[in-house]
Each structure stands twice: as C-alpha cells, then as structure tokens.
C-alpha cells in the first residue's frame, strides 16, 4: 500500500498543514505494509487524510530498530546527556506548540486552546520533569557483613512497547516516552489509528533534538493487528498500555503467552465525587462539572458519578446544571470552545446508547441528552439525577459528557462505601470544609488519586494510576521511573 509520506491537510479554520503519514522507524518515515487507514475529522465527519498502518512485519522492524539502537548506542549514552536531549525536545515542542495544537484539534476534536494550553503545555512540563531524573537514578549500597560488598543497580529494561489511546494523543505519549527515555530505554509506540497525526509531527522533533535513530519509533494501526503484535513481541521487555479495561485484559494475556513482559495498565474508571453538606457548593459545582465535562468526558478519571448529601442535593444540582449549561460546545478552532465533538461515530453511538439506557433504567434525564447540530459527533453536556449504584449508568464507563448524580443521607462512611462500590478505582473527589472528613474520607477511598476540594488537578511530579480494575502501575512522578527500570543485586564476596 503506497502513499507518499507527506500529505497536505486543511483545518476547519482554513489553515493548510503538511503532515507525515508513514511509520516513523529509525528516525525515518517509511511505508507500512498494512492497509491505508482513513483518518476522520470528528467535527466534520470528513476524511482528513489516509495514514499507513503497521503489520506484524512492520512491528518486527520497529522492535529490531529499537533493540539495535539500545544495545549499540543508547545504553552507552551518559545519563546527563539523556536529560539534555529531553530538555531539547521540550524546547522544540514549545517552539511548535501552535502547530501541534492544531493537529491535536483536527484529529481528536478537542479545542485548539485546550490542546495548546493544557495538553501540549502538560507534555512540555512532563519532558522537562523527567529530563531532570535521567542522572538521578540511584541504586543502593546495602551493608550486610564485613566480607561482603553488595549494591543494587537500577537498570533500563531495553526495548519498551507502548500502546496509547486517542483521548490525549500527545500527552499519553509524553507520559510514556518521558520516563522510559529518562530511564535509558528505547521505545516502540503504537498510537491510536483514530488520532495518528500529532505524534508524527512530534517524531520530527525527536529527530531534530538529536535522539539517535531507533531510540524512538512511532507506528500506528488497528489494535487487533498492530497492537497485538507489539504486545506479544518476544523482544519487547515491557508493555505500557492505556485504554479500556477490556483491551487491557488482552494485553495482559498476550504477555502471559509470550515472554511474560512487564506490564503497566492505565484502564477505565467510574470515579465518584462526594459532595458533603459542609462543602462550598458553588466551588464544588464548578470543580465537579470540570471533572466530568473536561475533554468531553473522554477521560479515564472522569468524575462520572456524583454522590451529594441529600440536605444540599437540590441546591448543588441547580448549581451544577448551571455549569453544564454554560459549557460552550462548538468547533475546536473557535477560541472560546470548551467542548468539541466526541472522537468518532462509534463513541458517539455508544454514548447516545447509554443516555437511552439511563432513561430506561429509571434515572431522571435532568439536562441535555441530545446531539448538538447535525454534523460532527457533538453531544450536549448531560445530567442524570436520581441515580443509584445498581444502574448501568453508574456501573459502566460511558466515556462521554454524561454525569450520574445520586444522594446519601449519612456520614462520610456511607459516602465512601457508595464510592468504593465499583470494580474500578482510578480516582475520587471529596468536597468538604471539614478537616477530619477530608482526611478520613481520603484515607478510606479505594482510588489511586483522591482530589480534595478540586478535581483533575494534575502535576507532572505527582503519581497517577488506579486501584482495582482501573489498572496497576503509576505514571508521572518518581514512581513512574520504577516502571521502566529493573533492579539487579550485585553481591561480591571479598574475603574468604
């Protein structure tokens, strides 16, 4: 299947951009052996361009390139130099921030302003954060007996595979690339075939920054072809996956039947936000709304269940609905747009189906619930009330701008029990002005991130990752480094 690498595309704002569409292996763009995949613009439902896809053979090529690069070059590069390259990469992303934002917006549907000021700004910070770790990866010296000399080395794994989703294309890339590269690994990353374009622009910056060929390889393709080949590859020492819990199981299975590669899974969630009677309700409504409507609800840690104390439920729901009403839904290329379209028809259909299910189950459709416009996958910010944990609306991940609100009448223990009643455990929110409630609730919640009087507050130095079936392993912070290292103990006997 051939198509020349560079294609010209036009954004909704009329700007022409040149994009790469071939696979990025060994610092070059090369054709893939798979079929050309149509990349759809979710705002217009039209084809942006076609991109090459990778078969198992291409995956092998990419993995071999990474392996050779690691063995012959990258493993010999000084740690501080790895940091210099990552900082240089961050500088280049800053230089090309606007173009990267436009690619993100046309492909994913998120607003350009959000892509630029949150996604890509977050990426830049993430690369700079991990650049600083490169020369600070310490083993330990452990004293045992005078005749022994013992220490640990924290070594790179070698070739790391990553499969990332479409909801935050560049940022999910950064969360994997940054610690993997800082720790000294070479990487083969499969992007989502729904959002392949921004990563290829990023690839040109990898080359410009001076990373040796083969250290970073970026390919795309269908999960069941490209993804599964990567997940099963015997020369990939670790797989980092972000996506649905269903696909996460398949990745884990592939590891178990191939080479028992190390795993890190960032999966789904049905995170609960708890609003107590003593909360600042206006503030809580603002934060909680952002917690579900950020990124059009396409957020693994979306606060999609809200439990509010019955004594303040009406007031809170009114305030919350005001927030939902104020959400500006529109074209990603308009500067004041907050919410663009959902990423694809399949996602759109799934969300609309859940809106119907919610009504069938007896929840109250309090606000929204309909499509916006007749072109593009736009859905109104939607509020369901009178929900309970028995409903599918409250158990299953919808991945859209749909919140399910229920109430509780007792104290923090009841609220926490409602929140914990889920197979997921990615995040949680607690809104209270009481010091003890904040501590006790956050101690008891079974969630990897607990936000107190806020939601979705991220920092590159703070770890993120789920409890229970939301996955295992941490991204961001020092904790993320451990995911990309293996520990070797060296035990020397010096006297005998």
């Amino acid at each position, binding site marked *: 299947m051939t198509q020349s690498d560079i294609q010209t595309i036009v954004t909704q704002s009329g700007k022409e951009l040149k994009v790469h569409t071939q696979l990025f292996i060994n610092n070059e763009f090369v054709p893939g052996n798979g079929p050309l995949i149509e990349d759809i613009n979710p705002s217009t439902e039209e084809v942006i361009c076609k991109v090459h896809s990778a078969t198992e053979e291409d995956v092998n090529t990419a993995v071999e390139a990474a392996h050779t690069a690691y063995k012959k070059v990258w493993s010999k590069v000084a*740690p*501080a130099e790895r*940091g*210099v390259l990552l*900082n240089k990469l961050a500088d280049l992303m800053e230089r090309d921030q606007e173009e990267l934002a436009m690619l993100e917006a046309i492909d994913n549907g998120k607003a350009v302003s959000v892509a630029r000021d949150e996604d890509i700004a977050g990426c830049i*910070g993430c690369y*700079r*954060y991990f*650049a*600083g*770790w*490169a*020369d*600070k990866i*310490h083993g330990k010296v452990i004293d045992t007996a*005078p005749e022994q*000399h013992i220490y640990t080395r924290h070594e790179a794994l070698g070739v790391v595979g990553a499969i990332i989703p479409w909801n935050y294309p560049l940022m999910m890339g950064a969360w994997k690339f940054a610690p993997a590269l800082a720790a000294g690994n070479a990487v083969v990353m499969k992007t989502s075939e729904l959002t392949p374009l921004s990563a290829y622009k990023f690839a040109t910056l990898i080359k410009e920054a001076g990373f040796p060929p083969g250290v970073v390889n970026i390919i795309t393709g269908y999960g069941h072809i490209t993804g599964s080949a990567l997940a099963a590859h015997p020369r990939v020492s670790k797989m980092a996956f972000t996506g649905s819990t269903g696909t996460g199981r398949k990745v884990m299975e592939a590891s178990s039947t191939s080479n028992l590669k190390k795993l890190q899974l960032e999966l789904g969630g049905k995170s609960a936000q708890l609003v107590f009677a003593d909360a600042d309700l206006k503030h809580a409504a603002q934060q909680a709304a952002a917690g579900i409507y950020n990124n059009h609800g396409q957020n693994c840690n979306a606060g999609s269940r809200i439990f509010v104390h019955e004594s303040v439920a009406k007031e809170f729901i009114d305030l919350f609905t005001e927030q939902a009403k104020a959400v500006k839904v529109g074209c990603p290329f308009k500067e004041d747009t907050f919410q663009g379209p959902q990423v694809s028809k399949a996602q759109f259909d799934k969300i609309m189906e859940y809106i119907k299910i919610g009504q069938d189950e007896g929840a109250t459709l309090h606000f929204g619930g309909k499509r916006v416009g007749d072109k593009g996958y736009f859905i109104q910010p939607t509020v369901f009330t009178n929900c309970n944990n028995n409903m599918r609306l409250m158990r299953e991940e919808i991945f859209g701008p749909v919140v399910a609100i229920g109430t509780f009448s007792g104290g923090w223990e009841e609220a926490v029990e409602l929140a914990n009643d889920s197979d997921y455990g990615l995040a949680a929110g607690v809104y209270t002005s009481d*010091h*003890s409630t904040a*501590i*006790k609730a956050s*101690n008891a919640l079974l969630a990897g991130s607990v936000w107190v009087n806020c939601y979705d507050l991220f920092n*590159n*130095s703070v770890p993120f990752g789920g409890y229970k079936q939301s996955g295992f392993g941490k991204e961001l912070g*020092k904790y993320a480094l451990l995911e990309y290292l293996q520990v070797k103990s060296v035990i*020397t006997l*010096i*006297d005998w």
Partner: protein
Amino acid sequence: MTGSTYITDFKTDRGYELKLNTGLFINNEFVGGDSQIETINPATGKVIAKVEAAGEKEVNAAVDAAEKAFEEVWSKVTPQKRRDYMLKLASLIDRDHEELSQIESLDNGKGISLSRGFDVRELSECIRYYAGWTDKIHGKVIETEGVLSYTRHEPIGVCGAIIPWNFPLLMFAWKLAPALATGNCVVIKTSEMTPLSALKVASLVKEAEFPPGVVNIITGYGHTTGDLLARHKKVGKIAFTGSTAVGRLVMKAAAESNLKKVTLELGGKSPNIIFDDADLELAIKWSFRGVFFNHGQTCCAGTRIYVQEGIYDKFLEKFKAHTQNTPIGHPHDESTFQGPQISQTQYDRIMGYIDSGKEEGATVALGGKRWGNEGYYVEPTIFTDVKEDMKIMKEEIFGPVACVTKFKDEEEAIRLANDSNYGLASAIFSESNKRCIEVSKRIKAGTVWVNCVNVLHANTPFGGFKESGIGRENGEYALDNYTQVKVVKMATTMSP
C-alpha cells in the same frame, strides 16, 4: 552611584577584550561598596581591575534583599518555575562560555583550555543537574496511629556562602545550584583574589530574569566581609570552602551568632596508594593529575604518594620523567597545563614548605625552584626520602609539590594513609578486585578513587571525613544542606 559607574573594560594578555561590571551585585543591581580591592593577574603580578568590596552596610543590604526576596517572591515561585530560571541561566552560561573561560584564566591563572574544558563546563552542568531537582524534593508520609504524619523539606530562607579562589566558578556553582533548587535565596561572597568571573555570572542572573534579591554576589576580605556574613543573624546557613583554619573561624562565628547551619569543605592531604599489581602507566598518569592538576591548588590533591616497594624505583623514574614534561606556560596559551600560583602570598608559602622539606632532610627529586621571571610560577616538585612527621607530609601545601614514599604491605599502606587529621579524598591503584573493594572500605576519606583520581561528577557527593569538613556537596546529598525538615501531625477530631 548608578551601576554603570562600575563598568570596567580590560583585556587579557593575549588581547581578548572584556567588559565587566565590578560593583556588588545586590537586588539585581550593581552597587558601590565601602572600599575597593585590586585583583591581580598572577601571570604578571599586575592589577587587572578594582572591584567594589562589601562592608557592614553592604552585607546587611545583601542579606536584607535576600530575605525580602524569599518572603515575598521566591517562596511563592513553583518548583517548575525555579527549574526554568536555572535552565535559562545555564543556557546563558553556555552562550557566553568563551568569555567566562577567558575571565577565569585571567583572574585565577589556570590554563585557558582547562577553564573552557573543565571549569565553565562544570558550572553549566552543575546548574542543569540541580535544575532537575527543584520539583523532586519530597517529604514523606509516615504511618502513625490515629494521626496523619508527614514531613516537609522546606528551604532555610537566606543562605550565605564563602567561596575560595582555586575554582571560582565551580565553587560558585556548587553552592548556588543546590541552594536555589531547594528554594533558598543566596548571598555569595567570592574570594577577593578572584572576584571577576562571578560578576559576569551576575549579569547573566539578571538577564535570566531571576527576581531581584534571589541571588546576591559580593566580595571582600574574609576577616571582614566573610566574618560579617558568617555571623549575620538573618542568615540561616553558611557554606564555606577554604582552609581548615578559616573553617574553624566560620564555625565559631556561627556558634557565637545564631547557631546557623554550617557546612565546611576544608583542606586535605590525600593519600594515593599504588600497589605492585597496579597498571603502572595508568597509575603514573593519574598520580600526576592527582597532585599537579590546577597547580596543586586543589583541596583533594593526592599529595602523599605511597608506592609499594616492589615497584617503587620504576614508578619514581617514570613519574619524574612524566612530570618533567609538564606544559608550564602563560594562562592564555592553549597548551598550558600549569599556570602561575594565585598570589605572592601563596607562592611564598609554597616556597617556604619546599625549604622546610629540604631542611628536614627530604630529597628534592625534581623541581623545587621558581619557574620563569614573571608571575608566581613554581616548578612541579617531587620530594623523596620523606618521613611521616615532616611538615611537607603532614601539612597542606596547596602547590605543585608531591611527596613520594614506599610501603611494604596493605596493612601498612592503610595505616599510613589514615594517619592524618584530614580525610578528604584518597586513591588506590591495583588490579585486584578484592583489594580494591577491601581497601576502599578501610580508608577514612570522603572519596576513594580506584584506578583514577580527581574524577568528579555533578551527581556524586563530595566532602571530607575528619578535619576535612562537614557535609557533602553535589549529588542528592547536597539538598539536605539547604533544607530543614518539618513534620506535621494531623489528628482528626472524630474517633478513629
């Protein structure tokens, strides 16, 4: 008096033109002092320029500026922003690498290829290394019954530093970088013998747009300016590098004033032990570097060379031959390895030690005289037939003077090496794995080099045992010097 009054033009002896502001750098401005000090070109004995020196009024102004900057601005700047300021400074240093190298060689006398290849390069790398730490300074959360206990690693506030003349920029970096990274504001007193290169960095601090008062750079005599800083009640910590004798005074000043925290990097008389199973060629090259690098003006110089009797004669013959070829010359000549000593006083002191060595009965195997007719040059000197109780074996000479003697076995070598009030560094040359590990365990020194000498890294600690000092610089360890630990224990009002 405006800052522009202190702008001075001058040239190196090879015609490189320089322009510097020679005022005191306080609150991002160059201001006058209460007196002026002449800084001398050690290659010619002539005055390079006059710099403003700080009296009590100016020291107070600098400390007040640092305190105000800390309370009102710097303590509110995010760790990420601190990092960005430091990276910007490092970039500017890289941009002006040549100019900084020229100033360093002019003021200190070290060879230009060394200023360029070592001093200025290390300045930049040190700042980049610590820029990477700003957002990684973690407290702990400690499980305690009924109480949420956590620690904060907080900055001290205003940190003072008194730095020497032997590696002006390097010593500046070792203090500035960890202090800033941990969130402190600084007042650094440079040596009145080498004030110029830091003044160039001062202009870069301003260009990097550090908030005024975060970095203050002053100079003056130790017994006046240094003493004022060491006993200032608003300075929470003093970091000193210099002689052991002055280190005692700094500690005393801290004790008499506000019990400020003290770290000291003092003198040394480091042993270099060469076993008969050493790679002889390697041992000679490294031993030479160990004692003659920087004209012997290095706190960790390997000035006592212990050679196992089996290879003593061979070692001495080759060591003499190697040392005879030392490229001595003008600091601004590219091939110069050894330039002049820093001052007339130092020169006299070194010659005094050489005389005492002769008087006490040691043999001058090489050198022992002045070199040339201009500048404070001393020939690379090797003493043999030394006894342990000779002044040249016990006291720090701080010049290009090596004492070479023999030992019988491992036990004797370790005993002799440890027989010193100092304990800064040491080196071992041997091909035996067992011996290298065992001996390195038993030497009482802060650094043990094995089959190398004077190899420093920004990310490994450096500091002395015994009277060579207190505390460690570089690596993660230095962060502790500039932070104080606060534990917060939050009890909840509800029953557990």
